[in-house]
């Protein structure tokens, strides 16, 4: 018993160090500009105001950015669920020529730095007429090597007997995939879905160069441009913007956290 209290003390201090900036952000979003500039800083807002949020949703176009972020994240997530499970199944369970080569290729791309594909991708997407469009924001992320790897690992763990039983019953190969095997991967799909959604929601560099007019901005792009543009000194607005970017995914993460941590444990990757 004597040993445990200081272990908890360290754990709590660690939690404070991790959480304090978030708490400060949340409290700060309800402060006035004057209070945010005060030295020394205050913790609790003295005169709580929702002015920052009113500005965010009134003067600034945050509902639009929120909509864009949501649409892009949902389509990207759906694409990854469908396409990564399809190829993951083929790589794990079907015999075809080039299977191993394809898998090695997928693994190899896990270590390609984003900067390597960035410039030609920009040239290609621009020439395809997709700059400043939803397809331009979405298409490059519809599949991911991580998703393929995750689904392949999970399908590999399912017994072949189920497929053979389906074949005996005369189910087509695609039917075996869609109706027998796919429903069994629900935990992996949950993991992939939540991680893809989080990744897309937080994605920053690509939308920054592809979304060129305000109506295509996603939340991180808008927040980044606000924090460097003429609103750079409007700290309350930035704090409220950060809250709007962060809170939806934090809530989502806390609700689905089991799936996230399991996915990392399965693949060893974020």
């Amino acid at each position, binding site marked *: 018993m004597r040993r445990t209290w200081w272990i*908890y003390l*360290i*754990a709590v201090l*660690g*939690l404070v160090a*991790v959480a304090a*900036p*978030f708490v400060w952000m949340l409290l700060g979003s309800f402060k006035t500009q004057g209070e945010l500039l*005060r030295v020394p*800083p205050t913790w609790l807002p003295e005169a709580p105001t929702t002015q920052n949020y009113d500005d965010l949703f009134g003067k600034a176009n945050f509902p639009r950015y929120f909509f864009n972020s949501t649409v892009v994240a949902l389509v990207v997530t759906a694409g990854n669920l469908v396409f*990564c499970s399809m*190829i993951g199944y*083929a790589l794990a369970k*079907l015999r075809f*020529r080039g299977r191993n080569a394809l898998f090695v290729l997928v693994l190899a*791309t896990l*270590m*390609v*730095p*984003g*900067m*390597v*594909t*960035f*410039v*030609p991708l*920009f*040239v*290609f997407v*621009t*020439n395809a007429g997709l700059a400043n469009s939803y397809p331009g924001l979405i*298409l490059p992320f*519809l*599949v991911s090597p991580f998703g393929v790897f995750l689904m392949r690992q999970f399908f590999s763990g399912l017994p072949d007997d189920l497929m053979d039983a389906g*074949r005996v019953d005369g189910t*087509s*190969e*695609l039917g075996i*995939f869609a109706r027998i095997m796919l429903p069994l991967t629900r935990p992996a799909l949950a993991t992939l879905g939540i991680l893809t959604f989080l990744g897309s929601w*937080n994605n*920053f*560099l690509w939308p920054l160069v592809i979304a060129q007019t305000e109506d295509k901005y996603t939340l*991180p792009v808008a*927040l*980044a441009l606000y*924090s460097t543009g003429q609103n750079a000194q409007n*700290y309350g607005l930035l*704090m409220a*913007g950060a809250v709007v*970017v962060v809170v939806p*995914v*934090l809530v989502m*993460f*806390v609700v689905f*956290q089991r799936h996230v*941590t399991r996915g*990392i*444990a399965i693949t*060893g990757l*974020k």
Partner: protein
Amino acid sequence: MRSHRRETTAAWILVLPFVVLFLAFTAGPVLGSFGMSFTDIKQRDLRTPFAVNGVGLDNYLKALSDETFRKAAFNTAYFVLIGVPLTLVVALAAAVLLDRGVKRFQGLFKVGYYLPVVTSIVAIAVIWRFVLAPEAGLLNTVLGWFGVDGPNWLASKTWAMPSLIAMAVWRNFGSAMIIFLAGLQGIPQTVEEAGQIDGAGPWQRFRYLILPLLRPTVLFTSVTTGIGYLQFFEEPFVMTQGGPLNSTISVSMYTYQQFGFGNYGLATSMAYLLFVVIAVITFIQFRLLREK
């Protein structure tokens, strides 16, 4: 019962959408980047990317002799060599703390420590600029309680990089912690009990029993973290823009700047130099893992 042809047909139908998207948006650009790095392609060639001249190794030579690129390479190495060990030590400490010490509310602590990993870097930047602000900042206020007069962290040539490293550790240790937790849970309790019977203290048990068994996990996380940190980009991009006086500019950041200046050929050659370093490190990792 098992028809080989039907299986192959099904496989290709299942693989096709991925292959098309992969060729267009990953494999194509990887090759395209390689090709571009040997040409003089600039922004004005954006619409005619094939009407450019080959320049051999010029871009690579230019990159390697560029003062700022060398500075960026140095900064990236600094960030990786300090940041990776720090991240892993914090992650391992947190994992051991949670696995061996904290039984109640373990889930709460795990979720809490992981929160920064799932948070948008742009939002983190907004918060951290406040944390590190010289006068009204959270950090300097706390330091002030102990009579320490904190510097203007992000405006200091000396302190800007350590600030970004601290931020990266804060942001990333959660992922490595989860992998370490999975590794620790795979070590049977009997190993520690045996050590206890032999009279080994907690530190000795950790050092001589647990840590050797975690070796593959440590190697694995050090390389995945290392690959991520070698691409160090977002922190300087949102916090310092590489400044002050290029003291936080990284290879990825400088590559992006060259892209911004329209020097596409030069930018791709820099990206490929980084790629080579990452590939070599990954290769060494696989060799080390295989030996075990």
